[in-house]
């Protein structure tokens, strides 16, 4: 079982290294804008990854994950805005320094996750799904009503993307590399995490909570810490997203965004390593290129109504491809279900 997982890890590493070269590949295709699409994919993959820590590791189905993405995104946006307006944020000056605002975004998201998690984790199952959704909705309306920061229209980063010494994020390739590296680091970190003692407890938690209690491990603190870590990583992806878009709006927190993330995870394969990444890739590519594709092959009805195909596609994957794309890709290998087995 470990074999398949190690293989998967090596595969991710290898492909990841290859992908560093993607911008040149895009140039060769004379389609430089693919670079920006790809960065967006890596950023969402990161968010999906962090959600997978809850859904896949600990078995906690959070339906409000976009909240933490959004909070992280807003932190970067708001700091940049204060920098531009040369005003203070509770006495603190705004900033464009990536080294300050991105970690800060992670911290704030983490703290928010701590607060929300502390309350939500008292519930289980569908109740947990709904209460996480509830808090996400509250945050959504909170940001909508934040007139000072653009309310519903959101905030632009007037002075462009964050500044990171040695990097020029204004340049799309460097933004791409940053996103790719962030995703890589997160994956590595989460992998270490899942193999650590902490990870073992999470996996155990997913498998049999009563038993875990019976061997003297109170689940709550572990779930909470997992929740915070996931929140912080989501915050990171949010921070990157704002940079990529040079814009942030409450739309980032809308409940359908949480749905999208969940779908990426399920689509790709819950509790697997390649799953969330595959899910993000396929989901976003379909979303962006299905219309164009149909346009090209002359099915104009579908090019406008591509969801007519996308919807059944999702259903099909649920009904016939148990374990998502991951299972499809790796089905020749055994023990996908036991991918985490110690």
């Amino acid at each position, binding site marked *: 079982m470990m074999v398949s997982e190690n293989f998967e890890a090596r595969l991710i590493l290898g492909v990841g290294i290859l992908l560093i070269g993607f911008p040149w590949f895009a140039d060769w295709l004379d389609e430089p804008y693919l670079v920006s699409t790809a960065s967006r994919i890596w950023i969402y993959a990161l968010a999906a990854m962090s959600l997978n820590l809850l859904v896949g590791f600990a078995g906690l189905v959070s339906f409000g994950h976009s909240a933490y993405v959004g909070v992280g995104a807003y932190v970067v946006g708001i700091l940049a805005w204060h920098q531009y307006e040369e005003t203070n944020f509770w006495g603190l000056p705004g900033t464009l320094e990536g080294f300050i605002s991105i970690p800060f975004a992670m911290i704030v998201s983490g703290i928010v996750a701590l607060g929300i998690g502390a309350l939500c984790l*008292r519930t289980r199952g569908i109740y947990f799904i709904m209460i996480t959704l509830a808090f996400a909705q*509250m945050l959504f309306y*909170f940001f909508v009503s934040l007139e000072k920061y653009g309310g519903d229209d959101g905030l632009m980063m007037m002075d462009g993307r964050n500044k990171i010494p040695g990097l020029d994020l204004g340049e799309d390739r460097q933004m791409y590399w940053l996103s790719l590296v962030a995703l890589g680091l997160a994956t590595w970190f989460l992998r270490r995490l899942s193999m650590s003692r902490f990870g073992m407890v999470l996996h155990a938690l997913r498998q049999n909570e009563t038993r875990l209690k019976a061997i003297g491990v109170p689940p709550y603190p572990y779930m909470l810490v997992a929740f915070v870590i996931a929140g912080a990583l989501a915050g990171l992806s949010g921070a990157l997203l704002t940079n990529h878009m040079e814009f942030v709006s409450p739309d980032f927190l809308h409940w359908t965004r949480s749905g999208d993330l*969940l779908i990426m995870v399920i689509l790709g394969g819950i509790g697997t390593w390649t799953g969330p990444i595959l899910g993000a890739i396929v989901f976003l590519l379909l979303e962006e290129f299905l219309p164009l594709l149909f346009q090209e092959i002359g099915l104009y009805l579908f090019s406008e109504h591509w969801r007519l195909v996308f919807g059944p596609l999702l259903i099909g994957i649920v009904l016939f491809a148990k374990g998502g794309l991951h299972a499809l890709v790796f089905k020749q290998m055994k023990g996908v279900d036991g991918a985490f087995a110690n």
Partner: protein
Amino acid sequence: MILLIEQLLNGLQFGVFLFLVSAGLTLIFGIMGVINLAHGSLYMVGAYATAIGMQWTGSFWWGLLMALPAAAFTGWLVELVIIRQLYRRDHLDQVLATFGLILFLNELTTICFGRAPLFLSLPETLSISVEILPGLLYPLYRLLIIGTGLLLAFFLYFLISHTRAGMLIRAGTTHREMVEALGVNLTLLNTGLFVLGALLAGFAGALAGPLISVEVGMGENVLILCFVCIVIGGLGSIRGALFGALLIGMVDTLGRAFLASGLRLILPLEFADSIGAALSSMSVYLLMALVLIFRPQGILPVLGRVR
């Protein structure tokens, strides 16, 4: 005072309306253990059927009548083709599949009826306001909704608690295996139940038609609210759904009605307005969070329910 009564009526009307959609949702979850995100689409189908029916016949009543078979049929089809595959799957799969279903149904509707919202107007006889108290004018149609809604609620209550089918349903929510062991044809029961839910949702959609624009995606907005209702009330219980729906209806309406003006007493105007508006749009979710924190099983959970 008059204002307060009128707002209470509004809350009641909204609540009753939410109940119609929630009832199906909670039963379907209760007995089949299926989270059906596409329930809102059935509501949409009802609304569209009414709109189309009205365009053909020119009569609101015929439209209303058409909504029921349309919704029922759609429900039956959906249950047969998709939901049936999901009974034994976990919530995640159900969420994903029914989400796909939403996309599909919405897009289909768009193709058939276009994106521009449809609007249906009430027959003259209904589009008037009646004076129910001296000085209190209230739209007749909304009164009608309250009436029918409460009637249906009572009917459902009777169905669940005083009929054999209801007995099975109640048993099914708590001891599924036991019911199966009794040799009851669960498939039939499920289909019937699903269609019943679809009927209610469709009817709600039909009622909503003349009040709000009939457009693609109208289902989702209602859906989320209804989930809140049934979760607050306690999943799987009709009583809970009714309670939750009325509670949400009241809280939402009264929040919108009085929160802002209330805050103005303690806060400077512009703050009061925006904070009030923000709070009132959050109020529903705030309520749900509070309920779940203190009653993680909802307020009126199904007794003996094993999670």
